[in-house]
């Protein structure tokens, strides 16, 4: 996995600062959404973020409103993954459903700094930073499959096609 620059924030980063409510009523295209990512937390982020960068935060990342744009805007800003001590459940699901990897690893959060380049090995459950290698429990198999398919709906569609193919093979 390629290295990404760290953007580090604190605990309880809520979805209002990830994607401001004032934009939620316009059904924006992804590129437009990306321009407002983290606007009320770090106005510099959206201008300076590069594809492959990594957002790192404390506990309860993505708390608050259920807005899906909080996950979408980070994904389309090019963010490779979000590493946090813990995630709010709705954000966690939205990220998975949008194909944005989320990694829970307190040790990495405590030991990486903004601007540092780190890499994540999702299969091995390892984060490599300047201060060392930090391990995390890989996501459950079921969630990894959703993530690999690009989200929940493509995953179910893929499963359905596979099922029909298997059925077709049996009937042939």
């Amino acid at each position: 996995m390629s290295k990404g620059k760290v953007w580090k924030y604190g605990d309880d980063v809520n979805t209002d600062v990830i994607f401001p409510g004032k934009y939620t009523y316009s059904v924006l295209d992804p590129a437009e959404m990306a321009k407002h990512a983290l606007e009320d937390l770090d106005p510099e982020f959206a201008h300076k973020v590069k594809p492959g960068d990594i957002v790192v935060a404390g506990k309860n990342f993505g708390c608050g409103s259920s807005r899906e744009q909080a996950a979408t805007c980070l994904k389309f800003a090019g963010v490779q993954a979000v590493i946090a001590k813990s995630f709010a459940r709705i954000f966690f699901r939205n990220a998975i459903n949008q194909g944005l990897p989320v990694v829970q690893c307190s040790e990495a959060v405590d030991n990486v700094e903004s601007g540092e380049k780190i890499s994540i090995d999702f299969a091995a459950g390892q984060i490599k930073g300047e201060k060392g290698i930090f391990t995390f429990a890989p996501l459950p198999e079921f969630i990894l499959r959703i993530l690999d398919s690009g989200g929940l709906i493509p995953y179910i569609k893929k499963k359905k096609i596979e099922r029909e193919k298997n059925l077709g093979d049996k009937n042939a």
Partner: protein
Amino acid sequence: MPKTVIEKIIQSHTHDEVAPGKIVWMDLDIRSARDFGGPNVVKNYGREYGDEPVEDKTKTFFTFDLCVPACSLKYAENQQVCRDFSGKQGIKVFDVDQGIGSHVLIEEGLASAGTTVVGTDSHLNILGAVDCFGQGMGDVDITFAFKTGKTWFEVPETLRVDITGKSPPETTAKDLTLYILKQLGTKKAALKAVEFFGEGVRDLSLAGRITLCSMVTEMAGIIGFIPEAMPDSEYANSVSIDVSGLTPQIAAPSSPENVFAVSELKDTEIDSGFIGSCTNGRTEDFAAAARILKEHKVKEGVMLKVVPATRRVYRELLDQGILETLFSCGAIISNPGCGGCAEGHIGLTGEGEVQISTGNRNFAGKQGRGKTYLASPEVVAASCLAGRIIRPEDL
């Protein structure tokens, strides 16, 4: 070992064996979308499923509650997108006149004990107040639920919270809720279901239960329940909170868990007050405020906004003369809905404005550029009379 409340409800909606930490596929009794999220659900649905019918139109609803009636073209168009889709699909819309979706679902009997409900409202876990599994979800999850009537869910662990002692009569369900939030923070209940036990919570009315359960979201919990029976299940953790010395509580900007005793922040000047929201928008919330406001006037220069949760609440306020009291004291009374909570219709704050609200969130930017404090209807009412934060007893 008997299952916890959430385990029992999920088990009755899945063929999978339920245990904490397990991901199961579960059946949904109701799925809903609001005017927020709804248009994206429609867009997703069209892209993924075209004109195919939803799994069960009698179990699928739109509830418009955020910007009602629409105050701008984009809001109007988004609501119309949902109405068009509903017309084609034969789905019922609880339209802009009806009020907060979660409350409407309770009033209509659609959310009831043992049922499972999902929607695009992050406070849908409020339905725990009626022993219903309610969960807020994002647009993709709800699109999928519309089409299949199912969702995947990781069965959470359950935290047992024992509320000990009896809270003093001058305190309210909101004070209790804010105090519990202060004790639990956003860590102890994180990603867990919560079961509250003890006299202090068992005696709560439906409105009080709604207040408590609504703010389990702010505790980072999955959902809260107030079981009738004594605890007999296996809990991941337990916490005991003594409320015998409870006093009126208030959350200061910019986090709901930033809780103080009202007395610690007394005399902070305010510019506006808001009474309403899914947390404190029931008839008894307004009745409590009215008892304090009756025959008084809101301090000159202070704006008091009143937003009933639902049309049914509005009717009750009319019938009981509560609207008359609120109007006469100088309040601005709006039609039912979410009001100012979601940067919506009533109650955006400008830079430098200080608001005291009965809502559930005070994140920076949530209600505009101003600062928002969270408290009970009684404290909001008293503070609007004084023009500064004050306990009702100190008026």
